[in-house]
């Protein structure tokens, strides 16, 4: 991947100490970016992220945030 393409990707940070594995972020993500790895949310397909921040808005545990 070239550097310019890499720069456009957002950064999704999952705080593993706070995530309780309710899978709300995975279920509501409109572009299927996230998945459950065991009982913790993880990024599966970062390229598809549209920065809508629905995962952040609906996360009850302060565990996920999307940085531009």
């Amino acid at each position, binding site marked *: 991947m070239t550097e310019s393409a890499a720069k456009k990707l957002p*950064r999704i*940070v999952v705080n593993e100490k706070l995530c*309780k594995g309710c*899978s*709300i972020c995975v279920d509501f993500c409109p572009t299927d970016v996230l998945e459950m790895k065991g009982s913790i949310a993880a990024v599966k397909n970062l390229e598809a992220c549209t920065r809508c921040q629905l995962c952040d808005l*609906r*996360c*009850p545990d302060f565990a996920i945030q999307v940085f*531009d």
Partner: protein
Amino acid sequence: MSTPVAEKKEKLSVPFDYNKYLRPNKLPHIWCPGCGHGIVLKAMLRAIDKAGLDKNNIALVSGIGCSSRTPGYVDFNTLHTLHGRALPFATGIKLAKPEMKVIVVTGDGDALAIGGNHFIHACRRNIDITVLVFTNATYGMTGGQYSPTTPLESIATTSRYGNIEPPFDTCEMAKASGATFVARGTAYHTIELEKTIHEAITHKGTSVVDIIDACPTYFGRANKFKSATQMMEEIEKDGTVNVKQAASLPPEKLAGKMLRGVLHKVERPEYCEKYETLIMEKANAKK
């Protein structure tokens, strides 16, 4: 990841910094996986930030219950009081320090059953307090007994064959008791909820926001919901209609649905101001 965080702060989509208002060492919170209370707390923090309130000038008061654990996680002046008695404590704070913004976070059982009397009288006085009622239709902390807002025929640990008690409509009750701002929101419609709470906080007088959220552990499991997501979609999304949309919908489409948004807003003299005026009048008359 080793990329510096501070570097891109000026970019357009910087996520909201909740840590500004939280006590981070108290996290993770005690709420179960999928519990809606965390979503409501986040909406409340964003609304407070939007209103530009000083966190040292806010008092957050609660009673007992799952929702009433909220003050433990936020860095305001906080008070965790007796079951159902958050409103009397909040009234005391408001009368002693009228310049302070007083917000009460309470559950449906705490506000409407144990503290039902205090709730109607706070509304009647129209004292400048914002009451956020977290309605999850169950007593989650004590094992899922039915509460005053549990829908008819729902299963709870104390109604194994289905609930036969008709539920309260929190908004109708607040309106009838005299609250000057009454609204409803859900954890699913989180941006709309943020706006509603912001409007409630900036309103002068008693403002009540009934917030529908999900208890997947007790209410959800007993009533055959598979996940928190399913509860949010079926109860909060499909079970409610925005009051503005409802005006143009036929009555058969509104059957069994609750209205969302600002349902009642009027101006009426506020209690602390009336009290202050009366005291000053009597003090001046004696001189």
